[in-house]
């Protein structure tokens, strides 16, 4: 870690006493923050603490009710998105806001042309401009590929290049490491170092505390619309950040229930093979056991889960549930066999966003709520909904609220509720806490422990090592489509998991 910039340096950007109200709700109350050139500033806080609102104000998307944004010593009271961009402030959103149908080069250059208020588009000058930026950051990006074909990491690099075309001096990155694997994060951080050398100030908004601590010089933590604390990153550790964020002590110790060693395995996967995705995968899970599966993005970990759930069936190999062979060729086969799956991309795959929480909870288990005449048993449905809604502590006024209105952590609990309602024998979760704040994360892991305690076999696919450490009995490491390591007991530590993933 480089030494923190000295206080004598003039801040590139500072905000003073920002207050913002939406209707009767105060989103920000007197927030102040300053960014120095060449620093990485971590902005941490739970969902709904006001981070997003602050970013929107800095980037000119929202106007503050009071307070000012000062860029290079000049106060801006009426900033809009374009004037923020021309002043050198760039936001890289979690979805990157790129155009999937255009090439990398066009994506890098296009917004600069828009900000320049040009009428004509000079196609010939696009490539050289983009090439200059890509070369400066020493990236390996194919300028002629369409962005829609790129990996998440390459999309992110494209977005960073785009920010630099504007001679950005402040780059705000929203959850930059969430969708990246370990190696990709390392690559991103190398780029970040080059940006710092150029004197760019970076703001990282993140939930992943470890990574953020590794790269940041300063940390600002927000809670309920206020800055709780701010200081040098070296003065903080995981624990103290989490405590400031939640306002309470965080329990992240390893907590796994004892297993009945004699119990027959609930799920046995034997020599599963799908060419191009994974080879010869075998493992078993006992009732009450939580099995972690980890690996780099593209290692085959998601494909294995999808094969078990029948979304993309394996070409060969066998799956046994409670000792009985289950022939899984499709999703209905898997559901019939008692397998539940919480997908990676929950918003598009796991939920009916416009429907109510209640409808979503019972969407997967209507067959279980039939009465004698095969009609729906309203009373039982209501009981299931009420039970899960309160058990899972979903933060909404009532179960009739649409899922779209929920925050990430709460939407995640609805997906979980949907599958718990089907009472599966085996529940597979892909990235169960991606994009969820620390408080919700602990609660979700707790829910999994409780579900396991009732005899369910649970498979958690994740690259969040502390999470695996916290709840898994065993952890399988997948690399290039093969199970390369099986960790159990004392071997399960964040360090060993990271080491095995990269090896």
């Amino acid at each position: 870690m480089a030494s923190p910039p000295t206080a004598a340096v003039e801040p590139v950007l500072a905000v003073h006493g920002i207050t913002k109200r939406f209707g009767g709700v105060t989103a920000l109350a007197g927030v102040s923050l300053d960014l120095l050139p060449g620093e990485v500033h971590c902005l941490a806080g739970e969902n709904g603490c006001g981070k997003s609102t602050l970013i929107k104000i800095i980037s000119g998307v929202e106007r503050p009710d009071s307070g000012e944004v000062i860029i290079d010593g000049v106060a801006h009271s009426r900033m809009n998105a374009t004037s923020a961009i021309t002043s050198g402030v760039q936001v890289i959103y979690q979805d990157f806001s790129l155009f999937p149908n255009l090439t990398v080069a066009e994506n890098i250059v296009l917004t600069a042309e828009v900000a320049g208020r040009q009428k004509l588009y000079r196609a010939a000058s696009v490539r050289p401009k983009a090439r200059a930026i890509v070369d400066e950051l020493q990236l390996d990006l194919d300028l002629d590929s369409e962005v829609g074909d790129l990996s998440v990491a390459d999309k992110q690099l494209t977005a960073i290049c785009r920010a630099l075309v504007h001679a950005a001096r402040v780059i705000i990155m929203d959850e930059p490491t969430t969708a990246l694997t370990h190696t990709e994060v390392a690559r991103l951080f190398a780029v970040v170092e080059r940006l710092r050398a150029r004197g760019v100030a970076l703001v990282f908004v993140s939930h992943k505390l470890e990574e953020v601590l590794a790269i940041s010089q300063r940390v600002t933590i927000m809670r309920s619309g206020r800055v709780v604390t701010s200081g040098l990153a070296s003065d903080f550790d995981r624990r103290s950040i989490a405590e400031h964020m939640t306002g309470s002590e965080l329990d992240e110790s390893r907590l796994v229930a004892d297993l009945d060693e004699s119990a027959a395995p609930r799920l046995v996967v034997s020599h599963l093979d799908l060419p191009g995705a994974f080879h010869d995968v075998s493992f078993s899970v006992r009732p009450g056991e939580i099995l972690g599966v980890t690996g780099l993005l593209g290692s085959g970990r998601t494909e294995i889960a999808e094969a078990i759930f029948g979304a993309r069936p394996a070409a060969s190999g066998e799956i046994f549930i409670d000792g009985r062979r289950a022939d899984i060729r499709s999703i209905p086969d898997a559901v019939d066999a008692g397998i539940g799956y919480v997908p990676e991309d929950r918003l598009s795959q796991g939920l009916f966003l416009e429907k109510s929480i209640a409808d979503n909870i019972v969407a997967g288990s209507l067959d279980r709520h039939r009465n004698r005449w095969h009609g729906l048993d309203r009373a039982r449905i209501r009981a299931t909904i009420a039970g899960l809604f309160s058990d899972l502590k979903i933060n909404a006024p009532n179960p009739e609220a649409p899922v779209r209105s929920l925050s990430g952590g709460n939407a995640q609990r609805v997906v979980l509720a949907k599958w718990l309602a089907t009472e599966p024998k085996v529940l597979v979760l892909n990235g169960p806490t991606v994009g969820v704040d620390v408080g919700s994360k602990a609660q979700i892991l707790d829910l999994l422990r409780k579900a396991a305690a009732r005899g369910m076999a649970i498979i958690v696919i994740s690259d969040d090592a502390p999470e695996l450490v916290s709840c898994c009995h065993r952890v399988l490491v997948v690399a290039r489509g093969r199970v390369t390591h099986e960790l159990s007991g004392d071997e399960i530590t964040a360090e060993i998991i990271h080491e095995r993933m990269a090896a």
Partner: protein
Amino acid sequence: MQMLRTLRGSNNEGVLALVLLTLIIAMSIISPAFLSAGTAFSTLRSATVPLIFALAVLVVIVSGGIDVSFAAVAIFSAYTAVSFAITTAPDLPAFAIIGFAIAIGAVLGLFNGVVIARFRLPTLIVTLGTQGVFVGVMYTYVGATYYAQLPPSLASLSSVTVIDFATGTGRASLHVMAVVAIGLSLIIWWMLTRTMFGRALYAIGGDAEAARRAGFRVMRTQVLVYVLVGVLAAIAGVAHMVMGRSANPQDLVGDELDIIAAVVLGGASIFGGRGSVLGTVLGVILIQVINNSLLLAGVPSAWLRAAVGMLLIAGVGIQAIAARKKARRVHTVDEQKADRVVEEVAS
């Protein structure tokens, strides 16, 4: 490989050209009369109005929307301008009548655009609705009379040809309206590829929210798209009447399928963000040639519509399947790349 990629074109224009060529060669072998300047010029003539419409549809589809009211806008604006000229100002010069039609088309397009952009409504439903509204309003307030004669200034345009020569089987001529269609194609091509407005259309079609964040004025651009559609539709409407030498309020509406099919076959993605003028021109000509060939082959004309319908489904189907394949490809493990990453980390 790189050359193949270039020849194929970013929207499969190369494949389309190949299909077209094959069809023409096949038809020439079956019926030698097919391959002649006369056939080529008559195909161009019958493709003129569809081509202008197709350019309009291309622009909307690229921006991520769809417009099914263009035929109604065309007939409304052309018929209103012509019937105004016939009933109240018979001496109006041609450019004034055309200008009047274009102005009406622009206003109708503006109406579509404002409703769609301001209230963020689904484009298909809005234009389906306005199609009915426009036709109804025209019948009620403008009239439903069939005029067998155009105003003199327009009528004189009907016989203007640019190239005209005798061939072995008769005369071949290039109508002035075909030249207008070619000119419009060039203008739209320039607009889509060389102006920021054109890039804005692709950006919005690719991801409207991203376009908004990038600073594109999305709402304004969308409104302008529908105004442009109105203008192009009005020109197509006038061209149709000039070439048909009459003004029939019952024309055009109902033939939207052919146009949309041509644009989609031409490689424009129904999901937005993709499409080219070259592809659209090829698509329009392909549909015309197929129609002509089927007629020549003695297929009853009732089957023509079925053929076009099937082509539309095939066109969209190919796009959807290709998109799905692409999505799948991204997910599977690229072993070589994975190896490389591992080596990088190790070193």
